[in-house]
């Protein structure tokens, strides 16, 4: 199944709002669970923005605000033993795949109780027990790592899958070519999810990318491709489920291009001179959270009182994580060279 031809308006991230019938999402618990995940990512990231402004977070932070439906929609279809590779904008992927929230928050603070014991920070959150093979500060590094995880699954004759999240900027990295070709020729159980948020740092996709329909890149490797409105959770669930099912059944990789928009700057504090306020405001009209609330209301699955209730619960959860992180200690200086090797290496200062 290869669909090259997309309607033009898909390009702008305004794909038809007609929602496919998602069986799962007629079920209250499943849909509320997805709603909570969306909220959790949104609240986590907004909390980080505020903490960063107060100088409580070291380094730099890339938030996932506006793109939540992609991670949540895709990961809804995953098992704990499935894998994801992530990007520098990785908190959303990690939360959707079930990372421990306290460990995540403490990592972003650089505390010893962090999921990577403070070594990695925001750009390197990982939880191997949950199949989260790491956020990564090197653009598109996850693509070849995903290929390796796929190879491992195939060799071990398991039925796990790998999701490789990467960006529309990352799609021009050479590693993408190498990974897609290999996954396709070996029919590895990898689903490439390209989060097309229109910008790479400060540069518009249009300036650096040869095609406007990114899914054709998958066609070139003989892969199945899908395009989806990345702000429409229900659509993401449906489309990624097809790709994931195919991968699990040994039918090979798919490239899913999810159109979206990053509401925040490239990093928290980015002055964003490269785009207009109007453009950002316009995009916020298609907030994935609001779209899903509309869906839930439309199908009588939840109402605004329920939304408020969930928001309160999630806020408490995130605040608890902040308290946990704030009360945790920093790692001790004398442990700085722990975890470099598996054993002690003589003669190396």
């Amino acid at each position, binding site marked *: 199944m290869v669909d090259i031809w997309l309607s033009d308006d898909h390009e702008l991230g305004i794909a038809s709002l007609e929602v496919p019938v998602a069986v799962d999402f007629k079920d209250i618990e499943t849909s509320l669970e997805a709603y909570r995940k969306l909220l959790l990512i949104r609240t986590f990231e907004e909390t980080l923005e505020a903490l960063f402004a107060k100088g409580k977070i070291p380094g730099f932070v890339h938030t996932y605000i506006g793109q939540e439906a992609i991670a949540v929609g895709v990961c809804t279809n995953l098992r704990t033993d499935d894998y994801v590779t992530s990007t520098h904008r990785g908190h959303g992927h990690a939360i959707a795949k079930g990372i421990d929230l306290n460990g995540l928050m403490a990592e972003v603070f650089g505390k010893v109780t962090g999921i990577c014991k403070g070594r990695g920070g925001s750009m390197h959150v990982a939880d191997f027990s949950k199949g989260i093979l790491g956020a990564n500060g090197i653009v598109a590094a996850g693509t070849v790592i995903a290929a390796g995880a796929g190879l491992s699954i195939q060799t071990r004759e398991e039925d796990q899958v790998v999701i490789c999240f990467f960006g529309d900027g990352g799609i021009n990295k050479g590693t993408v070519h190498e990974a897609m070709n290999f996954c396709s020729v070996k029919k590895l159980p990898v689903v490439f999810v390209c989060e097309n948020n229109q910008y790479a740092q400060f540069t518009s996709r249009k300036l650096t990318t040869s095609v406007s329909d990114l899914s054709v890149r998958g066609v070139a490797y003989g892969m199945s491709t899908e395009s989806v409105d990345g702000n429409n959770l229900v659509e993401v669930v449906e489309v990624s489920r097809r790709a994931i099912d195919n991968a699990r059944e040994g039918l090979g990789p798919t490239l899913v291009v999810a159109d979206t928009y990053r509401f925040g700057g490239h990093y928290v504090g980015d002055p964003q001179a490269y785009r207009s306020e109007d453009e950002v405001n316009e995009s916020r009209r298609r907030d994935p959270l609001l779209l899903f609330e509309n869906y839930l209301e439309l199908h009588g699955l939840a109402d605004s009182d329920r939304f408020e209730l969930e928001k309160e619960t999630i806020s408490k959860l995130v605040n608890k994580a902040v308290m946990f992180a704030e009360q945790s200690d920093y790692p001790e200086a004398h442990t700085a*060279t722990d975890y470099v090797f598996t054993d002690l290496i003589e003669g190396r200062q």
Partner: protein
Amino acid sequence: MRSISFGQATVEATAAAMREDDTVVITGEDIGWGGNFGQFKGLLEEFGPKRVLDMPISEALILGSAVGAAVTGLRPIASLSFVEFTMGAMDEIVNQAAKFRYMFGGQVSVPMVVRASDGVLRSSGPQHSESFEAFFSHMPGLKVVAPSNPADAKGLLRSAIDDDDPVVYLENKKITFRRGPVPEEDYRTALGQASIARTGSDVSLITYSVMTQHALEAAQVLLEEHSVDAEVVDLRSLVPLDIDSVLRSVAKTRRAVVCHEAWTFGGFGAEIASQINEHLFGELAAPVLRVGAQSAPIAFSPPLERALVPEASEVVQAVLRTVKP
């Protein structure tokens, strides 16, 4: 003299080179917007998109196309915002740029500059904090420059662009925004000439890049608190290496501490220490010491980052070990 930042000083050098020579072009990610550290501000406006090229996130292409362009008539400046991204283009730097002239028997030269920001800056984490000059200077065919202040940044970049060989120009993130006096006129600072950043008689601090600033701070502390008069030798370029200035200084002080932010183990400091020993063994009053990072990727968490990477206080301690054994 007016004071401008390191980054602005490099903009001036680039603009001067581009005005003088139409074949000078810049390629890199996000450079139209001035670059991550403002080191390309205003260049797109002055020289247009044919000479200031915003590139895709394709490091192998950025470095490889610079090689291709350099051997066919351009003088490209290929820029990567963090030195870690050169790792995705090491083939293009090491197997192509560095070797073209030699393996093709001198038929061509490869007049290109690779600009990359290195070093620690406030918890940027393990993939955005490191210093790789040892990799580059190890490779025959590459010249390597690592300025420590805005005035040198301007003069050395101008010379690097003029140079007919590939030059890796390393700009430390911590000093990119720091200001210093910079002459307004166009000038060049020759590659391969160290500068004596401070004269002294008791010990020589051999250093470059941001560590020169830490060494100068250390020298102040050493004088005020320990009555030790340190000389600071700023190498400025690692390849070519001005070993004569190093030896002259150490022959005078008979003590040397080599300092850099990069890992000590297998670091560039080992090369300096070794050459000092080879030439001055009998004259040394103490073993040559090295100050550098401990052997670990540079951690995110502030106390770990600080523990791994040396600053002035580590230099002071090392000096005290050489003068009061």
